[in-house]
């Protein structure tokens, strides 16, 4: 099996698995189905999870027309909707918990069922906050790992991408509003669209810049302004034998 077929098969079976488990949780009308038992209680050792740097896998999931949700759509979901696509567990299920324990861990791990992406957070003092951090990280991971295929012949940058471009872009109309930076939650949507383009042009910044009406230097600066974005682009470039951006 070629790499690509293997990946396609893997993502397909995951999607099938996901749709099964999602329909199970909604069909019984139970409002709390998404809190239900997790699938992976026993395998993680807390001490290995101190660094939250996302690991990048290239092209994990290229969403084809056959799958009913395209990749960018995950990021358009509200926190609650996205949470419903996840199973959440805490790391330790040793002992009876509850009143028996002085809080050992409020660490949280989310597994996004449709893609299999796992995101976690341990450093906050309440479970609630760890959950929010894990969800924020999940959004970044989704942007970085889920690729939508583009038709370059008919390409024009989508609005969410135009929003993160510097004003010099010749495609950026006055209706775009001010440039959105990495601290704005909407940045992630633009970042995903930008990565779709960079992947479509196989990592060439100058090619991507042309599609965006920017100079190569201006696009490089944009990519370097966000750690996740820079790392994803550099990972791709390294795999294509190109020099990483610095």
């Amino acid at each position, binding site marked *: 099996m070629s790499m690509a077929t293997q990946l396609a098969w893997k993502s397909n079976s995951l999607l099938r698995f996901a749709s099964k488990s999602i329909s199970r949780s909604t069909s019984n009308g139970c409002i709390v189905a998404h809190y*239900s038992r997790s699938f992976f209680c026993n395998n993680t050792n*807390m001490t290995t999870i101190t660094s939250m740097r996302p690991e990048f896998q290239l092209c994990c999931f290229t969403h084809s027309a056959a799958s009913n949700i395209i990749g960018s759509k995950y990021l358009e979901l509200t926190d609650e909707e996205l949470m419903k696509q996840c199973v959440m567990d805490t790391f330790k299920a*040793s002992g009876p918990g509850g*009143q028996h324990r*002085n809080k*050992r861990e409020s660490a949280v791990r989310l597994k996004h069922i449709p893609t299999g992406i796992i995101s976690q957070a341990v450093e906050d003092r309440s479970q609630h906050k760890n959950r929010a951090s894990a969800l924020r990280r999940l959004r970044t991971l989704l942007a970085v790992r889920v690729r939508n295929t583009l038709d370059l012949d008919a390409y024009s940058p989508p609005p969410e991408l135009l929003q993160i471009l510097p004003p010099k872009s010749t495609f950026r109309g006055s209706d775009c509003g001010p440039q959105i930076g990495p601290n704005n939650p909407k940045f992630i949507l633009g970042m995903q669209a930008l990565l779709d383009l960079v992947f479509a042009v196989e990592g060439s910044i100058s090619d991507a810049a042309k599609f965006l009406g920017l100079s190569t230097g201006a696009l490089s600066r944009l990519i370097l302004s966000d750690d996740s974005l820079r790392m994803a682009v550099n990972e791709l470039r390294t795999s294509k034998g190109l020099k990483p951006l610095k």
Partner: protein
Amino acid sequence: MKLSSSACSIARIPSLFASLCRPICSTSLSLSPSSLKPTTPLFLRPPTFSTSLSELNKWHHWAKNLASSVGSSFVHLDNGPDSTLLCRELRWLLEDSLEDHSLISQLGSQNYHMDVRLRASLDELYVLWRQRIEERRPFQYIVGCEHWRDLVLSVQEGVLIPRPETELIVDLVKDVVLDSRELKEGLWADLGTGSGAIAIGIGRILWSQGRVIATDLSPVAVAVATYNVLRYDLKDMIEVRKGSWFEPLKDVEGKLAGVVSNPPYIPSDDISRLQAEVGQHEPRLALDGGVSGMDDLLHLSNGAVSMLKPGGFFVFETNGEKQCQFLVDYMENNNPGKFCNVNIVSDFAGIQRFVTGFINDKCH
């Protein structure tokens, strides 16, 4: 987060040392009335102490070594904390003690004579960390607060430290009030409120017409819950009443839209085997649920029938699968036809933890 500024004025002068010298009581009821002034959490005290960075560094070094020396010995002893967790707690203690958090990253740097402002004296910090390790005094009592959901709740000896599992009760309530105006604007009761955690969590999701009555038998719990309610500026929405379970609620019989409770549910025989932080420091009144652990759960489920109005919702936290299933059977057999949509809900560790349901009428 909006905190009432007037609330802070009810905070008494830090009485940390008083509380250190006081013997730790195993039941909240034995505390003398004078100790009912709630202690101000460390992070809210004024930064009136100072030391040099090098002295702080020395303390930090000492505290870290003490934490490391624990290794996993507490884990083996009674499933207590290991040194990784203790080191994390040490960082949180620093966060709460230092006026300027950015100093944490400068510990160990060259800037030795720099002045550092602290919310407790360095001597107290030595005493506190020794208590944490040697007496297994819970970290949350040391700093006087617990982070729970998006809240920071004041806690002290005599009040149960709210657990991460219990955070889910608020989400369960959120789910049902979402589609019901009647529940959103209704009257709720949190029985055995402790620090007030659940009541405050619910108070913040109800609409402004909604009300919560929080009850507890323990005077310390009533004082601390009142303090927390004031701090979150919810005194118009949440009323704290002292008394046993439904007793202080006679005036609202049959009028409640919702009843939630995390009552004591540990079987009496298990109390002596609890990890030291819990068994030796938290109030027995908050933990001991009688021989089977179910005395209070059964009492509450019976009371819910007459206290809730038709269509009213309840959530009870339990010790796990056995109690959940027993409670569901008990409800069906003891009050046949009275409840509907009774469900068992697991916590995030996958343990069956909550029983939820409605009083019959609304669900056809």
